[in-house]
């Protein structure tokens, strides 16, 4: 006898799972349908197939500038956050000292800070210091949000690695930096790539904090937010939405599959 589910229970669960998946993916599918719909307002009945919304998006300079700004912010964010995340994870996993618990807690605190609060407190900080808001101020806020994610990805991987490998490198005369570059980094590389991707996509998509910290240049979410208030642009925005959604889904699933394989290969005896 199966102790968790009866045969009927299993059948019901399978149906329920299917219903939830429909609920989760139907809105995305509807966006996809309306991005090809030949009407200014997304409403039924459908009125024919068109590619003009995709065409319009290719010629929309503001939109492309916003995408570019977001890409820059996300690149800066992911590089800084992952660098800090590597330092923090090695510090936590490889050393024992008093206050380690408190340090770990502080590193994870951004997980529970509401984004409105983070955004406005950084806004006040920059206001008090007289710092001009720009791409960099957005990146500063995004790094704060993303640091815990990078640690949560990197730390388990570091704990898995045999510590003796680092010590062996040291015995063979490698300094700490060489040991990191030649031993540790290659072993945690899959996790580093995951962390970079998570940081990049989170930053690319972040609106709440960016809305407080943006200067004159709009990021993509800020552009999207204002476009959502003007219905005339809706179909075009939907077309971009579809492109971005599909791209991020593909990247995320591919990266996850790649990471599994890469880690499996590193585990396998050479």
């Amino acid at each position, binding site marked *: *006898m199966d*102790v*968790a*589910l009866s045969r009927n*229970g*299993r059948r019901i*669960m399978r149906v*329920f*799972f299917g219903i*939830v998946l429909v609920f*989760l*993916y139907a*809105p*995305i599918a*509807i*966006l996809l349908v309306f991005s090809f719909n030949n009407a200014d*307002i*997304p*409403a*039924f009945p459908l009125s024919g197939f068109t590619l003009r919304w995709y065409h319009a998006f290719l010629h929309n300079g503001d939109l492309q500038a916003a995408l570019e700004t977001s890409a820059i912010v996300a690149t800066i964010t992911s590089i800084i956050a992952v660098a*800090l*995340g590597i*330092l*923090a994870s*090695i*510090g936590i996993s490889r*050393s024992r000292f008093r206050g380690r618990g408190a*340090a770990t807690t*502080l*590193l994870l605190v951004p997980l*529970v*800070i*509401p984004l*409105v*609060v983070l955004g*406005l*407190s950084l806004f*006040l*900080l920059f206001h*008090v210091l007289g710092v001009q808001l720009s791409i960099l101020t957005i990146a500063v*806020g995004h*790094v704060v949000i993303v*640091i815990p994610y990078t640690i949560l990805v990197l730390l388990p991987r570091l704990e898995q690695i045999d510590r003796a490998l*680092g010590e062996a490198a*040291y015995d063979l005369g490698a300094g*700490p930096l060489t040991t*990191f570059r030649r031993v540790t980094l290659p072993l945690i590389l899959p996790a580093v790539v995951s962390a970079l991707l998570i940081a990049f*996509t989170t930053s690319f*998509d972040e609106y*709440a904090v960016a809305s407080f910290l943006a200067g004159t240049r709009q990021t993509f979410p800020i552009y999207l*937010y204002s476009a*959502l208030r003007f219905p005339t642009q*809706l179909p075009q925005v*939907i077309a971009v939405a579809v492109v*971005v*959604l599909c791209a*991020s*889904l593909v990247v*995320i*699933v591919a990266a996850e599959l790649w990471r599994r394989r890469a880690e499996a290969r590193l585990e396998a005896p050479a």
Partner: protein
Amino acid sequence: MAAPVPRRRRRPRLATPALLGLPLGWLVVFLLVPVAIVALYSVDVLSLFPGPHSFALGGWYRLFHQGYMSLFWKSAKMSLIVSALVVATAYPLAYFLALSGTRRKYVLLLLLIAPFLTSYLLRVLAWKVILGDQGVINSFLSSVGLHPLSFLLYSRFAVMIVLGYVWLPFVALPIFVTLDTLDRRLLEAASDLYASRLQAFVRVTLPLSMPGVVAAFLFVFIPTVGEFVTPSLVGGTSGYMYGNQIVDLFQQGFPDWETGATLALFLIAVISVLTFVFVRFLRLGEARVA
């Protein structure tokens, strides 16, 4: 004096606490200091307006006497309902994936979580298209000759359904993790002792998975109670939440940073208490199991 120990090569110190300096420094400068500045604004020591300022509790007085608290309760109630519904939906899904021995459980899990990894605003946009006056549901209703429903968009209902939609995939994860690591032999033991499936669930599985359930609940409650993006896009006036109030106090025509800072600080306080209680609860649970 102790006998001299033969000098050994120093133990390799490949890492020092100093490595933590940069990341911790970043969070001190860009998280702790800013929150302290918010606190200074909330008691009027720092102010938007020039001139001398001294300690004053006007912001805190207004928090408790100008309807901000009832707005907070309204938001808290909305997020409580959303969190409870979402956890109740995600639990059976996670249970099914973790315990029914389905092959491909990780593929199914990824399928469940994938929408969470896509753009937040775009998922909200999808619901705007579905719920709008000329949206999918209403245009369908009128095309078959029924009355369109006006309460769909710009309402509390809209905010709650969108928040639930947005957070559902994420919530399945912590519950799945606790159920997946659960020792199945405990269930077999329960069944050997003539427990029915229901009894085994109520007396064994559910209590052991509580940490995951509570974590999942907080993971939804914390971000949604301070939410302002979804309510400002699909909430209208009746879906207006505490987070919107904070934003408006900073960005509207008549800014009141003192009150806004107070509201923000109050939110942090509530969330800190909740998180603290949760961590204590986890420790207690671990102690009991060990």
